[in-house]
């Protein structure tokens, strides 16, 4: 698999993402900066977490306008796979590649803790190693992760199976207590209609090795590795 990680001034989770991709695929991803062009022949583009451009204006708003995002939009338009985690999810939303918005956490607090998610859509390039309904743990660290969309958009996401992950408790119940940032319908991650663009707030890349305290997040990267096995 040929993957590239795109960074902006203020990105800070790119190394974690690199470790996760390398562990699952055996190949070191290409590290790109916002002024670089996206090279041809990529299978996957990843926008990692951080605080791009100091979260000025709105989280992800500045990065969404940076030169490399033109290439990322074109890559996605041609059916390329794009993963955005945390700030990367915010950037995908600001770039119009995924619908909705991410508001300040309902508690106004920056949330830095583990959460649990239930896999709502299996069988995609990002989730094929999980069964639908599987529950896994992932760290989260964000101030603006409160997913919002109007009811029509939420209904469409649900009916078309584009909700990828939902916040739940350890047993997989989508309770209010498990939905710490206040997201609409406990939504933690969503997919584009062609299932090739995925954004989520928590960090599966930070649980891919027993040394990190677990491997709950590894299936996401193994799924991606499976999707792009050399023919």
């Amino acid at each position, binding site marked *: 698999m040929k993957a590239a990680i795109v960074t902006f001034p203020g990105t800070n989770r790119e190394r974690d993402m690199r470790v996760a991709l390398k562990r699952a695929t055996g190949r070191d991803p290409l590290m790109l900066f916002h002024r670089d062009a996206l090279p041809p022949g990529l299978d996957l583009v990843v926008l990692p977490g951080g605080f791009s451009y100091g979260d000025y*204006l709105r989280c992800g708003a500045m990065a969404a*306008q940076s030169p490399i995002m033109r290439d990322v939009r074109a890559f996605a338009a041609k059916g390329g796979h794009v993963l955005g985690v945390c700030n990367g999810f915010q950037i995908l939303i600001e770039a119009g590649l995924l619908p909705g*918005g991410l*508001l*300040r956490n*309902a508690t*106004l607090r920056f949330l830095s803790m583990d959460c649990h998610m239930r896999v709502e859509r299996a069988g995609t390039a990002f989730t094929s190693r999980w069964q639908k309904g599987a529950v896994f743990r992932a760290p989260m660290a964000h101030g603006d992760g409160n997913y*919002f969309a109007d009811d029509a958009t939420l209904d469409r996401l649900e009916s078309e199976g584009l909700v990828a992950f939902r916040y739940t408790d350890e047993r997989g119940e989508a309770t209010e207590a498990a939905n710490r940032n*206040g997201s609409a319908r406990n939504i933690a991650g969503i997919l584009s209609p062609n299932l090739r663009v995925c954004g989520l707030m928590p960090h599966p890349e930070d649980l891919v090795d027993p040394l990190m305290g677990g491997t709950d997040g590894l299936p996401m990267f193994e799924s991606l590795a499976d999707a792009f096995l050399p023919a």
Partner: protein
Amino acid sequence: MKARVYVMPKAGVLDPQGKAIGHALEGLGFGGVNDVRAGKVIELDLAETDPARAKAAAEDMARRLLANTVIESFRVELA
């Protein structure tokens, strides 16, 4: 020509910041504050001298960058 773009959380969209400010005002002893909404003001100094064109340009900027119209509404005033 100067333009002011007022960006506010849309009606019906949770505004935790406004809520927190409201609680703080209450803590300071200000009574009778029914609701607080917090937004932002962006001032633009535009080369355009025609008011209609300046307003249209500022609105275009608001739609494409200054506001996220999924969660925010905006209003442009020429100064």
